[in-house]
């Protein structure tokens, strides 16, 4: 599993570059053009990241979430779910930057190789900003009744989160 994880990226890079070479495109120029786009992307999300780190840090440092979730503590302990991950699981469907900021906070406090750190990493990768995407896509074509889409989308996220928990518990 570990070796497989390590080999994904090198293989992918080889595939992309070989394919580009065979199709006779200017691989280097393409790379530069893409890198420039990447710079713009980062530049564009910069204000949102600052805003979210600001809000998330205030919220997490106030310890409100632990006060709020304390009554469920036994339940979470029973399931072996650390309380610290709950803010991330709750905010992930709405805002990618917010959950990124929480993940950053977890890495600072517990390290990326802790149980929490790994769990947060898998969680960030395996679920999407479901509520945000639904709002964007439906409003772009003027849909008002979204029927069961939100339910199914959140259910899919829930399955992803559950599997992420199980995998972190048993794989590492």
């Amino acid at each position: 599993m570990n070796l497989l994880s390590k080999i994904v990226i090198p293989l992918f890079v080889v595939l992309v570059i070989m394919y580009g070479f065979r199709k006779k495109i200017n691989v280097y120029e393409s790379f530069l053009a893409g890198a420039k786009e990447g710079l713009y992307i980062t530049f564009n999300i910069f204000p949102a990241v600052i805003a979210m780190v600001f809000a998330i840090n205030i919220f997490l440092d106030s310890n409100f979430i632990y006060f709020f979730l304390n009554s469920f503590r036994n339940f979470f302990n029973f399931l072996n779910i650390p309380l610290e991950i709950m803010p991330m699981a709750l905010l992930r469907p709405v805002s990618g930057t917010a959950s990124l900021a929480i993940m950053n906070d977890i890495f600072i406090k517990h390290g990326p190789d802790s149980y929490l750190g790994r769990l947060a990493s898998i969680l960030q990768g395996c679920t999407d900003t479901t509520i945000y995407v639904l709002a964007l896509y439906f409003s772009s074509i003027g849909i008002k009744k979204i029927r069961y889409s939100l339910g199914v989308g959140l259910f899919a996220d829930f399955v992803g989160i559950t599997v992420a928990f199980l995998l972190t518990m048993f794989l590492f």
Partner: protein
Amino acid sequence: MVNIIWIFLILVGIFFSLITGNIDTINNSILTNGKEGLDLIISILPIIVLWSGIMKIAEDSGLLKRFAQLVQPLLSRLFPDVPKENPALGYIASNIAANMMGLGSAATPFGLKAMKELQKINPDKETASTPMITFLVLNTAGVTIVPTTVLALRIAHHSANPSEIIIPGIIATFCSSLGGLLLDYFIRRRKK
């Protein structure tokens, strides 16, 4: 939506700290916050730039299109109500391929075009059609092969093995897509 959450996080955080006498912590937090945000951006910047470059090669060389062609046959099964020659299926395939490769910004335009095409064959323009819902389930549960920002942050925080989360991540995403599609399938069957 994000607006309300942002306001909620800040106000609840500050008021709760005032009530519990945590003023020092919150004061420090506000003052040092900006630096933490900057550090976060700086740590994800190199990988996003680098990976965008690699993915641009995949786009320019037609590899992304090849990927889309590979998933397309599967799609006509998932979308029985969409005619096979409808351009929506092509856009959906490109959207999924771009998402798989972690090209979020390239995926969105394809996704919006797919919704537009699906809207053309939607009898009730204000209500989501079943193919739209199936597409959005696929989209939001979508598989990402290389989660670039996560990797970048893990590297920045000196993980001993930053990429160890890739395969577990793929498994978790796959399960979440499958779960979503199955539920969607059963709801569609029951409604018929």
